């Protein structure tokens, strides 16, 4: 008996509410070496999830494990609604797509022939339409007949992206998609990922380009064999760093200690160069007006005052430095 439209819609709604990816205490060891350990997180449908970490942190191995290319040592995961297990490998791979760091195209075949091959492997109906639509999505419609061997690295990367789009996957795993690309080509890939986000595609993006993660990702996880932190970039900043105010004066203050220390809400101050001051405050919005009043009252020539912004890079480096310190 076939399901009614209402039942199908209800099932779809439930599926949408469930995370696209659930990872629970997943661990992978190669003999004595631990690739990643005790990793747990969830990725919602339509989310762009950044997976950051230094080289050798276990990012690619995590992707390969979730993509059923390699078996986890322990832990569990649900990928696109299907429990991760060797028996479910084909079904999981049918629902996801992975773009490895190198697109791995057949250079003697044309762009279309490469995509035809993969359309065949996914058993897609109306492959010609799907190929045309995937190529249009990556703005490669006019290069469909070109041999892949003749394409630039950036264009090959776009073909790789088109290939991951072919099967209309529940989750796209993009492993370092801008690795080795020049800034222009990398920006094109960023634009494509943004377009995919607008279409509601769930993307799992591994990268060590922090500005890329900050620009593209809804949430990020920082991995260094174990999961060090997870959340929205601004959440990670708030979690790791106290608020701060930056002050720039035309002439260095004669006695900054006497000026800043008595201000309520100012916990500490520092100055790396004359005329520049960084105040550590519990709430920048509360402290800023009083700091401004005190500076003006002291006759300081204030050129600028603003909230100190910590980048994702600061968060990342702080966490990775902690690991380096712990290993010493």
């Amino acid at each position, binding site marked *: 008996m076939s399901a009614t439209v209402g039942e199908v819609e209800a099932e779809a709604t439930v599926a949408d509410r469930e995370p696209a990816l659930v990872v629970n205490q997943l661990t992978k060891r*190669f003999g004595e070496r631990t690739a990643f350990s005790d990793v747990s997180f969830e990725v919602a449908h339509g989310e762009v999830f950044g997976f950051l970490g230094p080289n050798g942190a276990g990012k690619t191995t995590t992707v390969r494990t979730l993509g059923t*290319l390699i*078996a986890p040592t322990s832990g569990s995961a649900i990928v696109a609604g299907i429990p991760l297990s060797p028996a479910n490998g084909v079904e999981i791979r049918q629902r*996801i797509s992975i773009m490895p760091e190198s697109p791995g195209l*057949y250079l003697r*075949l044309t762009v279309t022939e490469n995509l035809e091959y993969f359309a*065949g*492997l996914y*058993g897609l109906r109306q492959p010609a339409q799907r190929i045309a639509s995937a190529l249009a999505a990556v703005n490669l419609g006019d290069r469909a007949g070109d041999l892949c061997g003749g394409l630039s690295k950036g264009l090959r990367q776009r073909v790789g992206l088109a290939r991951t789009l072919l099967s209309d996957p529940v989750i796209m795993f993009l492993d370092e998609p801008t690795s080795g690309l020049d800034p222009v080509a990398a920006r094109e890939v960023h634009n494509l990922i943004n377009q995919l986000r607008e279409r509601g595609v769930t993307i799992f993006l591994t990268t060590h380009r922090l500005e890329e993660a900050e620009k593209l990702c809804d949430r990020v996880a920082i991995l260094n064999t174990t999961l060090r932190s997870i959340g929205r970039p601004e959440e990670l900043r708030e979690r790791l760093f106290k608020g701060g105010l930056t002050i720039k004066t035309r002439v260095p203050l004669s006695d900054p200690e006497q000026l800043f220390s008595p201000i309520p809400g100012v916990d500490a101050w520092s100055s790396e160069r004359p005329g520049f001051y960084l105040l550590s405050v519990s709430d920048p919005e509360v402290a800023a007006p009083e700091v401004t009043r005190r500076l003006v009252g002291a006759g300081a020539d204030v050129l600028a005052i603003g909230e100190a912004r910590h980048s994702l890079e600061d968060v990342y480096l702080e966490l990775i430095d902690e690991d380096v310190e712990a290993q010493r």
Partner: protein
Amino acid sequence: MALNAARVGAVVRKELRDYRRKRSIVATMVILPAVFLIQPSLAVFLSSPSTATAQTFRVSLLLLLLIPVITPSTLAAYAVVGEREQGTLEPLLTTPLRRQEFILGKAAAVMIPTLALSYAVFGLFLGVVRVFANPTIASDVFHQGPILLALFLFTPLLAGWAIVVGLAVSVRASEVRVAQQLGMLASLPTLGVVILMGVGVITPTFTVAAAFAAGLLVIDVRASRIVSRMFDRERLITGAKAVEP
């Protein structure tokens, strides 16, 4: 577990396309069989009816059996390690393609041109003998019943053997050149049998031909299953063997 014919077909189509685009592959496939035509042609056209013996033609015809062994060995040996070297294996393994489908597709893609070339060469040789050779010698050649049967019967079986050995080497090898050199080992048993028949240790009869064919069929089927089991995604991607949790 059912194999998906569409996925196997996709692998075969892509492989044949890839061969056609690489002239060196086509050239190698055509030149090797041509080389194996030289000795049988000399035996037929330089022998006089008074001096030629049945043994002369027997060995010459048996040498043609090396064509379906040697032609596919380099292609099969390249099949997996080649994909690995050019970085196309990992994307392929991320698709729903099962390992058995991959192996079957690769094997079929090597088998098709091998059979076409081998039978074309046999047909060409016999046709030329029929039309241009001395009628007595032509009659001697066409009276080698068990050998002619072996040519037709053994060709797919020997090609299957060479392909399975080549794929086994390819799944395990870390480098294309090593795989292709080791893949040539598949021709040694065939060469051995030809030599044994040539020196009269084994007498080719219909019974012997049928027994060899049955034995080869069993070996091919078992060996192909072993190759499928040797295909370990984890080892191919990371170099480390998968360990059960």
